[in-house]
């Protein structure tokens, strides 16, 4: 998988970009699966310092999910400090002028809460899951680290080791992570989406306390944060807590806009990686529009048609029928700026990569030329719709979806109209999306396979393979 999202701990799942859709048009009575109630229960308030607070009361369980979405990610980095947004995410748990390193976690866990955080190309998101009785503490802790973060040089050194270990786990000891980093780095020649979110090794080893201080001052302005709360709490109570704890933090100059735009790609780029591997990898990353592009829903449905589930088109053709791959994954990676859509194929041992690539190209050309079927589109809409409801079944899923819509689409209310938005997507829209995305001149192909066997006799090598 592309290293789009790095978590603070292993337990974290990938950022749940809400995946939403509806199937057949409602007739006279609207079936329940197409009706998203609750919009009137969501309340929002913008504090005097510019921080927006959004609350959705849900009293199913006596807990609250709190998300702080900060609009900063690896796209805000420059050479020398790659990985700093992610490292910063780690440091947000490591002490303030009022609390010693580790106190954040100790205090929260002692009141029954847990937390995590993750960083992507675009955002850094802090998550707390607390019993409602610990809500006051959660606000105290969140405001303290936004207002009073401090950096202990000893802690910086040990956290550097933690992050490097994360990099070794996900990138250096992982063929998938390694190839994704190479492809992403090759796809962009100008835009900072070329930065690996975890950072290049020399930067991990090199960043300084001054880098951290500057990064904090620039990016952690309250007016650059959006707070989402979902669970067993009323909006008025949340707003009172937000006014008490967060409103006193002064508004700051917002971070500078990312100025660089990626020039148009005028020809295919290729990257080859030779590493010890039994199962070769073939990745293709296509230049794609930003998350808020009106074609976003059609692109999401296109990737569902191609790669989601055992009946998806590429899985059926390449894995089941031709047995050229053992796994096909794909997704539209949604960000603030135009980015990438990924197709990631894992191949069986001994596969001839060019033959697989030819079959993939043929399948993609077919989608571009002939489009998709009604059944394929209906299936994709139904899968999105069931995924949507699974997400809304938890306070955590609601918080994640509200935040994703607010931050990437500009308005959390789009969550409630999403089924309608997806319902309207037509076969023509999907074909248009395929023509937009699958342009060879706009793609970067990555291949990872074992280096060619040395001229040495084949027998010992064959023996080593049991």
């Amino acid at each position, binding site marked *: 998988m592309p290293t789009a999202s790095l978590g603070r701990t292993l337990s974290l799942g990938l950022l749940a970009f809400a995946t939403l859709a509806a199937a057949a048009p409602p007739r006279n009575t609207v079936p329940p699966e197409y009706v998203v*109630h609750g919009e009137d229960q969501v309340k929002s308030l913008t504090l005097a310092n510019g921080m927006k607070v959004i609350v959705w009361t849900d009293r199913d369980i006596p807990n609250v999910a709190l998300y702080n979405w900060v609009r900063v990610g690896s796209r805000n980095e420059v050479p020398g400090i790659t990985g700093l947004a992610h490292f910063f995410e780690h440091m947000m748990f490591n002490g303030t002028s009022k609390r010693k390193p580790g106190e954040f976690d100790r205090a929260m866990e002692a009141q*029954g809460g847990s937390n995590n955080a993750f960083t992507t190309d675009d955002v850094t998101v802090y998550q707390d899951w607390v*019993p409602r009785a610990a809500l006051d503490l959660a606000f105290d802790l969140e405001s303290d680290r936004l207002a009073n973060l401090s950096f202990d040089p000893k802690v910086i050194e040990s956290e550097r080791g933690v992050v490097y270990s994360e990099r070794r786990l996900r990138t250096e000891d992982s063929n998938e992570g390694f190839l994704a980093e190479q492809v992403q780095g090759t796809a962009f020649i100008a835009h900072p989406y070329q930065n690996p979110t975890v950072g290049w090794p020399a930067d991990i080893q090199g960043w300084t306390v001054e880098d951290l201080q500057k990064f904090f001052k620039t990016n952690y302005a309250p007016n650059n944060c959006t707070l989402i709360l979902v669970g067993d709490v009323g909006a008025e109570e949340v707003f009172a807590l937000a006014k008490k704890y967060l409103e006193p933090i002064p508004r700051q100059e917002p971070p500078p806009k990312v100025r660089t735009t990626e020039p148009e790609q005028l020809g295919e780029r290729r990257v080859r990686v030779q590493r*010890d591997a039994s199962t070769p990898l073939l990745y293709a990353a296509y230049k794609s529009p930003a998350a808020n592009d009106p074609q976003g829903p059609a692109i999401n449905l296109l990737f569902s048609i191609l790669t989601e589930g055992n009946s998806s088109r590429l899985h059926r053709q390449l894995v*089941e029928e031709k047995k050229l791959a053992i796994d096909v994954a794909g997704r539209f990676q949604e960000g603030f700026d135009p980015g990438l859509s990924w197709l990631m194929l894992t191949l069986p041992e001994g596969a001839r990569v060019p033959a697989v690539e030819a079959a993939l190209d043929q399948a993609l050309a077919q989608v571009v030329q002939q489009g998709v079927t009604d059944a394929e589109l209906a*299936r994709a809409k139904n899968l999105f719709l069931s995924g949507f409801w699974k997400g809304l079944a938890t306070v955590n899923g609601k918080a994640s979806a509200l935040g994703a819509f607010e931050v990437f689409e500009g308005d959390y209310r789009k969550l409630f109209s999403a089924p309608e938005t997806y319902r309207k997507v037509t076969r023509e829209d999907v074909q248009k999306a395929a023509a937009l995305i699958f342009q060879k001149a706009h793609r970067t192909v990555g291949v990872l396979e074992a280096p060619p066997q040395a001229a040495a006799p084949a027998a010992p090598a064959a023996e080593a393979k049991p």
Partner: protein
Amino acid sequence: MSARHSLRICAALLLSLAFATAHAAPEASGVKVPANQRFVLPNGLTVVLVPNREVPLIAFSGFVRGGALVDPAGKPGVAAEVAGLLDRGAGKRSAFEFADDIEGVGGSFNAAAGAEAINFNGQFMARDMKLMIELLADALMRPHLDADEFAKFRDRDIEFIKAAKDSDPSQLLPEYGRARLFSGHPYAQPQGGSERSLAALTQSDIVAYHAAYFGADRTVLVFAGFFDANAMKDALKAAFGGWAKARSALPKLKAAPRATGRSVLLVDSPGSVQTYFWLGNVGVNKYYSGRPALDLVNTLYGGRFTSILNTELRIKSGLTYGASSRFTRGTVPGEFAIQSFTQTDDTGKAIDLALETLDKLKHDALDPAMLESARAYVLGQYPLRLETAAHWAAALADLEFYGLGKEYIEGYGPALAKVDQAEAAAVTADAFPRPEDLVIVLIGDAARIREAAAKYGPVTEMKITQPDFSPASK
């Protein structure tokens, strides 16, 4: 989602609902099992229904007893392949038609072999209840277990093990660890098979397993979500009423002995930049009377971010991205295991630290304030794991599997509240291994860590490319 209907879907329907779950318990410890109907059909099939209309989905969860436990001798992976083939052609549908019909309506069906059962779950939109039951009945009672589908699926499973070795070797640690720790016991068998054992399986192994061990009396089905209980009951009777009982008896599991002394399995992965390690011994079973105390002590030791293990190996020293411990509890004791990783040159340092923490745990009294903190944490997080219909379907299937009552869930909070220092000390002495008694597995660059490994006991070496999880098999 145990109770309230914050989305207020179809408000009119809500009025007619007969279920009443405990809503928004005032305290986290007040988790209540939602009202449900349980019945057993004449053929022995057990069904549990949990109506809940928060979102328009129906979740199911269930199992057929058996699993890796009844894999034929020397053929681990049979149950796993049976599980994988259930939805690859069944009833009147081919493999492709089956997938088309599940995913075409946005549904899901997953099945996998565990140590003592084939477990399955899935979710469909409420409007597709009839189709869901038809597909589920076909998958369980009438799978084709077709030769071509078997060969294709089996070949891919072999490749997936190789792919894991290429991209995430740490996920294989428990396979190596269990193979060694439980040697000679069914828990030693890799539940998904190994590259070698999968390659040797035949379609007849698969067909024979289904014929012998599938049957109504071995099966439990739990449905939770948006449905009418009476309509569901009628539909299930019609679909499953004619299912026969299973033919072959299940063996009775005995507890495996705990390991004494230390031994090391070094799995050589040349060029690996980190060492991934697993330290384990036989722990306790699902019925362990000290469960609340054990959960608190393991939370403190290796079960949360500020745990002793994570504090020493990550927070204070920066040696790793994560260190944790857990108990796996079956009808007989499964393993207690510590798992972590560190850069190759720090292998000895990190393992020493892990052993030191275990030694301290065994010898020093727990800080009362820490025990309070763990209690608050476990209680505070518990409702988040029992929030949705899918959570409840899984939790009630678990109770059925182990023959436990709802007290196992509802009594948990009150039992946690009563755990005192003495009880915590007792389970620490009883259930956690001494650092001197451990099976140790290291995956890493053997040339660089061989010397460090030898400090911990006699070392057996194998290559990661070997097609089994144990060096001994032939």
